[in-house]
């Protein structure tokens, strides 16, 4: 690239996160508000790394009961059977419905865990001041933002199985404690990704002073 590439921060400006307006920040630094939409301006999200770490660790802890506790209990006159998320995937596995079993497995097990590992990787590389593969890391961030919502799939599955199978006294399904933990994992990881500021990936280890190419 022939022109100089410079971040808005190195030029004393910030792009508003809400409306996109580029605004010159006050000197000395203090609270600044976007003149167009009135929202608080941030050169980088405040305490982004600390908040993202806290939420990532919280989600990892919630991930354990989410997978160990049953998400639903099926009651019949013969007794009660409880299923965890993984048992639900196994039961869905059949010659005709295995593609759906794969989808549920990916959305409920792979995506939440993969998201936490990817977040930890992004946090660690930013903290080490890495300047390598910035393009790949920002694409990873955009992927996390895009696919994270799909983990909510199992919450909807459980809700509608519970809603439909209410045939007392023949058969009825109750939600288990696992659903609550699982829903919490999904919500906390979504908030964690939102609290990570991808602009940190591009910042040089030292406060950037010069425009770099």
């Amino acid at each position, binding site marked *: 690239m022939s022109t100089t590439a410079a971040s808005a921060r190195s030029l004393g400006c910030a*792009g508003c996160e809400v409306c996109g307006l580029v605004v010159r920040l006050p000197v000395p630094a203090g609270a600044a508000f976007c003149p167009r939409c009135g929202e608080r301006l941030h050169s980088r999200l405040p305490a982004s790394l600390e908040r993202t770490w806290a939420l990532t660790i919280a989600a990892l802890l919630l991930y354990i009961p989410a997978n160990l506790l049953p998400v639903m209990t099926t009651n019949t006159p013969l007794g009660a059977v409880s299923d965890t998320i993984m048992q639900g995937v196994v039961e869905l596995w059949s010659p005709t419905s295995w593609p759906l079993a794969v989808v549920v497995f990916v959305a409920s097990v792979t995506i939440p865990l993969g998201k936490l590992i990817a977040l930890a990787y992004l946090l660690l590389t930013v903290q080490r001041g890495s300047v390598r593969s910035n393009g790949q890391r920002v694409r990873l961030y955009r992927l996390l933002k895009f696919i994270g919502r799909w983990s909510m799939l199992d*919450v909807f599955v459980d809700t509608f199985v519970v809603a439909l199978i209410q045939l007392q006294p023949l058969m009825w399904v109750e939600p288990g404690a696992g659903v609550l933990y699982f829903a919490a994992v999904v919500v906390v990881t979504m908030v964690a990704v939102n609290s990570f500021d991808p602009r940190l990936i591009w910042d040089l280890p030292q406060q950037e002073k010069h425009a770099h190419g």
Partner: protein
Amino acid sequence: MMASDSLPVAAQVPAASAAEETLLACPDCDLLQRLPPLPPHHAASCARCQAPLCRHKPDSLERTLALALAAAILLLIANVVPMLGLSVAGREAFTTVLGGVVEMWREGSQVVAMLVLFAAVIAPALEIVCLLLVVLAVRHPPAPHWVATLLHGYEFVREWSMIEIMLLGVLVALIKIAELATVIPGLALFVLGSLVFLLAAMAAAFDPRVAWQRIEWAAGRGPDGIAGGRG
């Protein structure tokens, strides 16, 4: 004013005279770049990280209005007609989206019930209503400042509006139940299916830049895009 000639131009847009350009900081990498006016249907991406920056959408406001009205009607229908039915041993039971929420609440999972209510009903409704009000309000610029709050709310609620995920969830639930009882797909299932496409088209038609340009500034009119911070 900084020497904007030294800044890179956003990728994939033709060059234009400096007077018509706007300044833009990439939300994903903070690269400050010049954005020339886009020809119809063209999209600009970040010169450094390829983040999509904006797209020129012809007749954005009119098309968004039409799609949002249609989506509002479909969402209303989807929540009043039955979605899924079950027939076993001569007994039939039907449920709607709200029925699922109520059953979850009664069975003791109140938090999950609220989450499902928010993601499947409230967030999509807010998404449609916010956008509807925004496009109606900005028809006569400058729009009052509460429109900015609505536009901000729309961007937030979009991430939590999960009709497409709920629909896939219903499909999986349907397969799970099919081995126990006869499942009867209801009208709402097809309405929700159309709504998924309508919501996607609505979001694709809406150009937030056009709306922002027509909203009154919080701190009065600023100079050429670079304004001093308030307070």
